[in-house]
């Protein structure tokens, strides 16, 4: 069994557990839905549909949603020490990181899609370049989880993990958040070249932090 097979096995295991007990998914979906709703009420329809405002709040919601999903995922691993059964195995640590990334991306992509549809209904921002917006959505949801999963793994045995993960990961994720926001705003306003530029930056972030996590994780998990 090669590394990719092992990672996919972990992802399938994670998604099966999440399907049976969708705690993380439901929490993330509720949080993002409420945030979009509160945004439309707090800013009023005029300001809330501004591309910069709508994009920024959407991606902040997705960032928190990613943290919720990752935290719940590793809580499940720590119950009954299930994680130890994987860490003992050859390639288990890398597979755990990569598999969690895949599974969390799938969950986050569904949450982002639902939140985007809700935003379109409630805010009616007007989408000039829907294909570009989807591209930013896909790459943005790929660029955020590597840092969150990595910091969750590093803080795995820390009692204050729930507070520590955002404190450690959010400062690192500010460039990704800016790229997501600017890219989405560009897609909404019809600036194709800017949207593609930000998409490239997001792809680079996803690759760099994904690879960095794979090199750090084997030695860093306790």
């Amino acid at each position: 069994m090669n590394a990719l097979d092992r990672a996919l096995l972990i992802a399938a295991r994670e998604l099966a557990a999440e399907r049976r007990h969708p705690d993380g998914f439901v929490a993330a979906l509720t949080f993002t839905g409420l945030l979009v709703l509160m945004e439309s009420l707090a800013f009023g329809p005029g300001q809330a549909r501004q591309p910069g405002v709508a994009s920024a709040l959407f991606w902040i919601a997705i960032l928190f949603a990613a943290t919720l999903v990752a935290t719940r995922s590793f809580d499940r691993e720590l119950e009954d020490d299930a994680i130890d059964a994987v860490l003992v195995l050859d390639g288990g640590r890398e597979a755990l990181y990569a598999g969690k990334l895949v599974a969390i991306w799938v969950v986050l992509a569904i949450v982002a899609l639902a939140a985007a549809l809700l935003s379109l209904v409630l805010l009616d921002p007007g989408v000039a370049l829907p294909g570009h917006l989807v591209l930013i959505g896909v790459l943005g949801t790929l660029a955020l989880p590597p840092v969150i999963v990595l910091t969750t793994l590093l803080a795995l045995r820390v009692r204050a993990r729930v507070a520590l993960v955002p404190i450690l990961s959010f400062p690192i994720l500010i460039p990704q958040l800016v790229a997501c926001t600017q890219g989405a705003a560009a897609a909404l306003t019809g600036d194709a070249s800017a949207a593609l530029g930000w998409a490239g930056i997001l792809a680079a972030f996803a690759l760099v932090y994904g690879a960095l996590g794979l090199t750090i994780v084997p030695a860093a998990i306790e």
Partner: protein
Amino acid sequence: MRRVPENASLHDVTVVLDDRTILRGISLELGPGLTLLRGPNGAGKTTLLRAFAGLAPLARGRRSMPGGPPLYIGHRPMLLRGLTARENLAFLAAFRGLVASDVADALRKWGLGDEMDRPVERLSAGQRRRASLARIETEQVGLVLLDEPFADLDADALVRLRAALNTSLIRGQAVLMATHLHHELDQDAAHSYVLDDGALREL
């Protein structure tokens, strides 16, 4: 101590956790057969098993595991909640590249024929323990590490565990077991050690 180079071993291992030295310069080589590990609570038995499993950080020394990763069954069942017992065991066997076709048979032998497709969080502590011990039969590896395997087990499960252990020993597997119930197993053990204050002594 055995001197077969293919055996799993720890060489001069020291483990320090939270500024406390748990294991002090331990060297131990595990050949085929049952090795019992005894000692008072807090002596470091679990840490020694975790050192063999690669789960304890070594402050000094080295771990050699030439036969591939061991099977480690700790105090807790180590099964992922949200999955059934069958799914958990099939996943772990598949990760090792083993065919998972005999998972259902193994769980039936452990008395979980009607429970194997329920999520593990709906099983009792004893049933979860049975499911985790069924891994001895679904993941046939060179070294089996068992930490107090008799906890939570009823009389039927104890018989089943003895049978599984006998099969493992006949197959030539090495089994390292930390237990307080050593009297029942002394006659089967190839070696017995006492761990006290981080130091190991053969009986």
